[in-house]
Each structure stands twice: as structure tokens, then as C-alpha cells.
């Protein structure tokens, strides 16, 4: 009796598998175009042999693939060149009725060289401002795996007349210092990185070991043409006036005009040079007396 029950249950299950394979064993819904094959697993599957190309090609003519589904011109029909590849390398099914979900792992490297290097055969060229300024060779920045993120970018790929139009892609800095500069960005910055800039601060003041501070220690406003030395030093404006008046210096608002580094002697030399070059310098009334 037990055996009979077991055999009966087995038969019932086998019958269910044969009659309703789509709900009993199918791992997912077939795509819309294959819906009439829901109960005909062997139309595509060869038992224990996978999905043979022959079964796909019996319905889909290689030279015609893509004509109806993509609506593209004959130029992009490339499946004929892929006769040696397995259809299931790129296409799958049982992934829902949407035909687009059936593309499981398309690899551009399967395409022949002529097609793979002519991206616009299949892809439309981007029309945004950025792409209008760069060389049309997509592989310069993008690889075959994904459009984004880009594989690399080099400003050298910009069209020649766009090389110095930084603001066409980059937002101009909004601080007062940068807003008053009329020169192009490449005077101080390069295309490798924005920070650090190539601006020669040493021409104004040497940032030696005693003055290796952050910008806002001295430039405490948004205007980088302004600075103060009183943030760190103990001296005050009144004590500086007293000290510098001995030298006949009355204008102490622009320290770096004489002090171009932490070197005190350097300041004296700078002052002497300036006085030597211009005996009528208004900063030094004492020199005029000499």
C-alpha cells in the first residue's frame, strides 16, 4: 500500500510538471515575444544540453536580428558576425515580459573591430554642452563596460578652441580674490588638479617654516588681496607705529612691502633698496632728512 501511494504521488507530480511547466519549474516569466512558448520548454532547451543556437536561429534569422526590435538601420545589424558566439552569452529569458530585461551580459568585445570603434552606429552622440567640447572619440574617456563612471578624462581631449575656456565647464570661484582676476585660470592652476595652485606666493611673502599657516590665518576676509600680520604676532598697530617711526616709516599697513619673509635683515635690505631706488619714498621721512 505504501509503495502504491508513493508511486501515485510520483505520477501526480510528474503529470503536473508536464501539464504546467511554466508554474512548476519555470524560474520566471518569459519575455513578451516568447509567451506562446510558456508550455513548450523544449522549443528552446535541449534536455541536459543547454540552449542551442540552432533553436534560436530557427526562428530568428541572424541577418534580421535587431531590425524590428531596435528600429535601427541596417548599418547596426551585427548579429551575423556573431554566428560563432552562444546566444545565451548575451541574452537570457525568464526575466520578465519586458524584452529589455532579457539582455543579460552583452560584451562589446564580441563585436568586430570596425563596429566596436564606431560607437555611433548603435549609440547616439550626446548633445550636452560638455560633449560638444570634446573630441568625438568616446574611448578616450569611456570604456566598454559602462558609460558611467567614466574610465578617464584628460583636458587634452578638449577641442583646441576650448582648451582655455575653463568656465564653460567649471563654475568660477565666488570669492572676492578670484572675482577680481581677469587672467585665465591656467595662470595659477593646471588641468591636473585645482589645489594646490601654481600661484607664486613667494613673490609676495615667503611661507617659510614660521609662516607655514593656512590661508585664512593671514587672509581673514574673503578678499585674498587683503591680509593681516596681527593675528599671530604679539605686536599691535600702536607699538608698530612707535617702533617703525624710529626708522622714519609711517605707513605700516602694508607689512610685506618690506617684510617679504621672517628674515628681519631682509626687511632692512628691502627698505634700503627701495630708498636707494627712490629717495622720495613717502614711507621714510628719515631717509629724506639724510
Amino acid at each position, binding site marked *: 500500500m505504501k509503495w502504491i*501511494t*508513493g508511486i501515485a*504521488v*510520483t505520477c501526480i*507530480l*510528474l503529470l503536473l*510538471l508536464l501539464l504546467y511547466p511554466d*508554474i*512548476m*519549474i*519555470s*524560474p*520566471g516569466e518569459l519575455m513578451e515575444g516568447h509567451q506562446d512558448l510558456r508550455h513548450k*520548454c523544449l522549443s528552446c*532547451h535541449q*534536455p*541536459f544540453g*543547454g*540552449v542551442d543556437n540552432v533553436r534560436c536561429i530557427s526562428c530568428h534569422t541572424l541577418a534580421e536580428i535587431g531590425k524590428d526590435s531596435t528600429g535601427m538601420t541596417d548599418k547596426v545589424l551585427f548579429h551575423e558576425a556573431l554566428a560563432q558566439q552562444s546566444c*545565451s552569452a548575451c541574452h*537570457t529569458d525568464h526575466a520578465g515580459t519586458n524584452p529589455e530585461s532579457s539582455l543579460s551580459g552583452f560584451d562589446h568585445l564580441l563585436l568586430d573591430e570596425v563596429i566596436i570603434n564606431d560607437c555611433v552606429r548603435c549609440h547616439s552622440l550626446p548633445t550636452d554642452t560638455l560633449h560638444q567640447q570634446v573630441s568625438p572619440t568616446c574611448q578616450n574617456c569611456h570604456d566598454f563596460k559602462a558609460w558611467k563612471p567614466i574610465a578617464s578624462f584628460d583636458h587634452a581631449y578638449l577641442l583646441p578652441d576650448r582648451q582655455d575656456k575653463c568656465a564653460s565647464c567649471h563654475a568660477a570661484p565666488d570669492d572676492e580674490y578670484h572675482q577680481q582676476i581677469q587672467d585665465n585660470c591656467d595662470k595659477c592652476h593646471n588641468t591636473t588638479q585645482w589645489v594646490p595652485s601654481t600661484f607664486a606666493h613667494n613673490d609676495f611673502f615667503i611661507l617659510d617654516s614660521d609662516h607655514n599657516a593656512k590661508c585664512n590665518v593671514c587672509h581673514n576676509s574673503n578678499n585674498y588681496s587683503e591680509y593681516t600680520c596681527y593675528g599671530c604676532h604679539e605686536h599691535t598697530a600702536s607699538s608698530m607705529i612707535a617702533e617703525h617711526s624710529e626708522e622714519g616709516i609711517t605707513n605700516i599697513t602694508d607689512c610685506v612691502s618690506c617684510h617679504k619673509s621672517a628674515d628681519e635683515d631682509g626687511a632692512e635690505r628691502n627698505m634700503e633698496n627701495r630708498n636707494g631706488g627712490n629717495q622720495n619714498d613717502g614711507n621714510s621721512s628719515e631717509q629724506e632728512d639724510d
Partner: protein
Amino acid sequence: MPILIRQVLPLTLLYLLMIFSVIVIDYLLHHFKIVWVGRHLGLVGTILVVFSFVYSLRKRRLIKNGSPKQLLLLHEYLAWIGAVLLLVHAGIHFNAILPWLAVYMLLINVASGFVGKYLLRNANQSLAESRRVLLESGSDQEEVEKKLFFDAVTVGAMQHWRVIHLPIAFLFGLLSLLHIITVLMFNR
């Protein structure tokens, strides 16, 4: 302490531990992006479960070697671990009915196994011991049966479970076998 709490509760916790282990392993596979391992765990789990049936063969004297007690322990451990791996393999992917039936039968089979011979023997012994103590203490038969009514109901329910353990195991094996065959047939 009632048999329900003394015997059934720990095994219920063991059953819940199995479910919890599955969730943890499944989470780790997703976290480390190695969900492909789950497919292979199906094979490993199946091998463990199949190997656990050595006890069933020994019990029915189809093989002569091996301590039945040791093989019973092996049956329990291998079936439990195998069930965990098979459940991880199944994941929470609602596709075809056949593999899901196999998973449901697996869950029922493990539950059935817990109330199988090991638990049943202990519960029976415990019930008999309680009955003997009560009778020796002077209680009459009617009073003893009244006091042990709930325990007797528990043991009776477990006996029903044991009766259906073999058909459940058969159905689980059949569904799993059909699942394996259809996967091998139609796998690309």
C-alpha cells in the same frame, strides 16, 4: 515541569536557531557579494542530507555496520546542517512551485525529525516515570491520569508526528530529486 516546556521548547528553539542561521548566512553572502555561493550550497546540503540517511539504512538493517546510536546522532546533525545549507540555497526567491514545495517539505521534515524517535523516547520515558512516582506516592489511577493529562496529550500528538515522518521524508526526497533533474535538464 510539563513535557511541553521541558522537551518541546528546547527543540523549538533549535528549530528557530536553524531559521536564524539561514538568515545570518544569507545576509553575509549578500553583504560580501558572494551570493553565487548559495547555488553550490544546494549541492553540499543535498550531499549532507543524503549521507544522513545512513542511519535509516542501518535502522532497517540494510547495512550491518555502525552504532545505531552514533548514526542517529549523525543523522540529526547532518540533517540539521544540510537543512540550513539548503534553505540558504533556496533564499527568498519566489519563482517556480516545485523547488518551493521541496523547501516547505524540508521545513516540515526537520520539524518532524525533532519530534521523532529521540524526543518521543524521552517524552515517553518521562511520562512513564511521572506516572510511576505518582502511583507510588499513593495517588489512584484516575487522579494520576488527571494530573498527567496534558503530558499525555503532548506525547500523543508527538506520536502522530512520528507516523507521518517517513512519508514527509519521501515527499521531500521526491520533490528535491525532481528539482535537481529539471535544473540539470533545463539549465543553460
